[in-house]
């Protein structure tokens, strides 16, 4: 039976990619190890090598097709003795419809295994007060939104520069700094050695001297090596100097659970940093917020921790096409209005929260979903106003529950809206274990939309 070649994944978080080029033609002999095609995502390109021998029987996905889902059959290889007539035996008849489809339609391929759209229905989202009505919107990935934010601020202010591991020639370990070296040169886009403690300290020193560094941590897991410089040097110096010497610096990079990388590379540091006075802590979910808040972070005269999320980098969203789109730090966003229960989350926790709100709506429960966006300073006002309306609250975070951000939110609701509560605040969080590697255990360790639904129903006594 003919062998199927499947669309490979470049990384555990890749859901789809573009089939850039076929390097073999139908009918050409294939040896194991031959490069047969090139695929690409917004992050990287990769060559597809054949692992089987035979003849390239049929190309199922033509070159130039965008958004091909991982594991979609892209070609068949005929073994010795097989002919084109055997192709019918290959179990991919549905793919034929996609063959001649234009690239735009390919996104709707039935084989797509991963849920992509997580955005709430636009009709229920509150309008963004920072965006004038009628503003043109551009769809871009969060990765691109972050890059654009840095590029715009670097054009605007010659004191802004970026340093970190692989930010320059490699174009960013997660391709967030793609193209910055080419535009701004090696003076302002600096590759560092693998030296988190040292380069974080050097960044803080440069900031004390008046520059505005953006320090990229390849992930925040590695920032633990630099924790002393972040907390003791960056966060405290303004206070210890009686206001004389501050530190305008952004520490940014992916935070939280990645996919299948186990405990040391999968941890949410939201509560760690949000514990510290002197730091501002931002954790955006949408592409627009990623851009507007990163620009605000770079301009802020204080040290800012900017928590991105690897899983979200490739997600697309609409970003207002404005010359200078800056979102104020410290303001939550009502992502979805509702009257029955308030669900509060941020960053990738919003994925579960919004999905749960959709589910709850089907059962007649209208959830109001708040995207905190900034964890410190926390927008208590927006949370409290919502809880006064709904009388019920659920917090959702990927981090651990003990001393977590959800615990802080629950305390603030108790302090400011105790008499309005119709049920105790419920917390949905990562489980109280280091992140396991096995796929099934990893899934269990993270929060889920189902858990959010369950918690929301519980506080609604349903």
């Amino acid at each position: 039976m003919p062998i199927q070649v499947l669309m490979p994944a470049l990384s555990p978080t890749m859901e789809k990619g573009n089939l850039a080029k076929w390097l073999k033609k139908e009918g050409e002999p294939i040896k194991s190890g031959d490069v047969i095609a090139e695929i690409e995502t917004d992050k990287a390109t990769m060559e597809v090598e054949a692992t089987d021998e035979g003849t390239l029987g049929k190309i199922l996905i033509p070159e130039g097709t965008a958004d091909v889902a991982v594991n979609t059959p892209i070609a068949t290889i005929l073994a010795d003795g097989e002919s084109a007539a055997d192709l019918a035996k290959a179990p991919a008849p549905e793919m034929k419809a996609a063959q001649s489809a234009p690239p735009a339609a390919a996104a709707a391929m039935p084989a797509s295994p991963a849920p992509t759209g997580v955005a709430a229905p636009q009709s229920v989202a509150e309008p963004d007060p920072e965006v004038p009505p009628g503003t043109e919107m551009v769809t871009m990935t969060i990765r691109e939104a972050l890059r654009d934010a840095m590029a715009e601020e670097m054009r605007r202010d010659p004191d802004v520069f970026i340093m970190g591991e692989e930010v320059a020639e490699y174009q960013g370990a997660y391709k967030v700094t793609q193209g910055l070296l080419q535009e701004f040169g090696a003076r302002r886009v600096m590759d560092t050695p693998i030296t988190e403690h040292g380069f974080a300290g050097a960044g803080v020193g440069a900031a004390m001297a008046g520059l505005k560094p953006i320090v990229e941590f390849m992930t925040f897991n590695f920032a633990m090596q630099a924790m002393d410089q972040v907390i003791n040097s960056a966060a405290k110096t303004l206070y210890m100097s009686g206001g004389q010497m501050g530190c305008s610096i952004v520490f940014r990079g992916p935070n939280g659970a990645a996919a299948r990388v186990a405990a040391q590379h999968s941890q949410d540091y939201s509560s760690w940093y949000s514990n510290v006075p002197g730091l501002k802590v931002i954790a955006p979910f949408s592409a627009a917020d990623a851009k507007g808040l990163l620009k605000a972070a770079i301009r802020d005269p204080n040290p800012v921790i900017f928590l991105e999320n690897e899983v979200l980098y490739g997600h697309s969203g609409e970003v207002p096409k404005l010359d200078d789109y800056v979102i104020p730090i410290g303001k939550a966003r009502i992502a979805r209005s509702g009257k029955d229960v308030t669900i509060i989350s941020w960053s990738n926790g919003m994925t579960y929260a919004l999905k749960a709100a959709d589910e709850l709506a089907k059962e007649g429960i209208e959830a109001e979903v708040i995207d905190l966006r900034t964890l410190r300073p926390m927008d208590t006002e927006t949370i409290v106003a919502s809880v006064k309306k709904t009388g019920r609250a659920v917090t959702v975070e990927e981090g651990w529950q003990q001393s977590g951000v959800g615990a802080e939110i629950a305390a603030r609701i108790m302090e400011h809206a105790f008499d309005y509560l119709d049920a105790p605040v419920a917390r949905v969080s990562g489980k109280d274990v280091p992140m396991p590697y096995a796929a099934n255990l990893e899934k269990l360790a993270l929060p889920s939309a189902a858990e959010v639904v369950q918690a929301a129903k519980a506080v609604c006594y349903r």
Partner: protein
Amino acid sequence: MAAPAAPKKSAAKDVNADKGSGPPPEFTREQELTALRDMLLIRRFEEKAGQLYGMGAIGGFCHLYIGQEAVVVGMQMALKQGDQVITGYRDHGHMLATGMDAKGVMAELTGRRGGYSKGKGGSMHMFSIEKQFYGGHGIVGAQVSLGTGLALANRYRGNDSVAIAYFGDGAANQGQVYESFNMAELWKLPVVYVIENNRYAMGTAVTRASAQTDFSKRGISFNIPGEQVDGMDVRAVKVAGEKAVAWCREGKGPYILEMQTYRYRGHSMSDPAKYRTREEVEKIRTDQDPIEQVRNRLLAAKVSEQDLKAIDADVRKIVNEAADFAQADPEPDVSELYTDVYR
């Protein structure tokens, strides 16, 4: 950063090139008098701080610089306007040497509103942008990365300023010191690493904590040149400092100076003094005291005892006024508790 295409020849062979190359050049009388006055100011200031600590006017930690005065005073004589200074927690001497006001420093020690940090920083945390003094850092070794960052800012701006990062023989064993050495040489940053080897990290003798006790060699694997300097002789410090600073200003990268010095007092005010003998301390005080060396040379050069006493009296006046101010100045207003967290 795009380092200039500097030749990658090993600079390490310069290490210790000048060791034992004879006595340092003589100071002019003017220089001797300046050095004497500046070192005396530190000595008297620290003696007074010790006294105020004993009276309970100063709290917490208080690390005195007595014995090490020639290091900062000699280094400061080698610097020019715009050069930056950063150090660890034994920092009063560095602040006075950069020209910071004794009243503001002493009032910070007593936690008063007229202190350099409005009383919020204390002994280990003072700063002066005006005097290019970047602290005052309480975490051992942190100032080495920070000082490297000051030098990075100089490179970024393309100016010819040099950052001086002071740290002790104890801090020299911290990991981030070597992370900083690597980046500084890689990017040819203008930073002089001044290792003040006062022989004890708290109560642990250098030989009990360091596999390599010649600290000038600590940069060898990064090709950073280094020298051992008689840190008790202000003239030797100045000439070594000038050489190191010139190296940096020429764009050749960092330089290491190991200042061989000695701390007369305990690590902090609560030192048990069990790790060394009284005789050891006395011998160095008698034979090598940095201030006595200058005083003796001045007397030999026929400066009158009376003139030297006048300098001492002048310094004592400054210190006494600082102590009076630091005790009379009110504590910070309670409203200051919540200020300066953000700007």
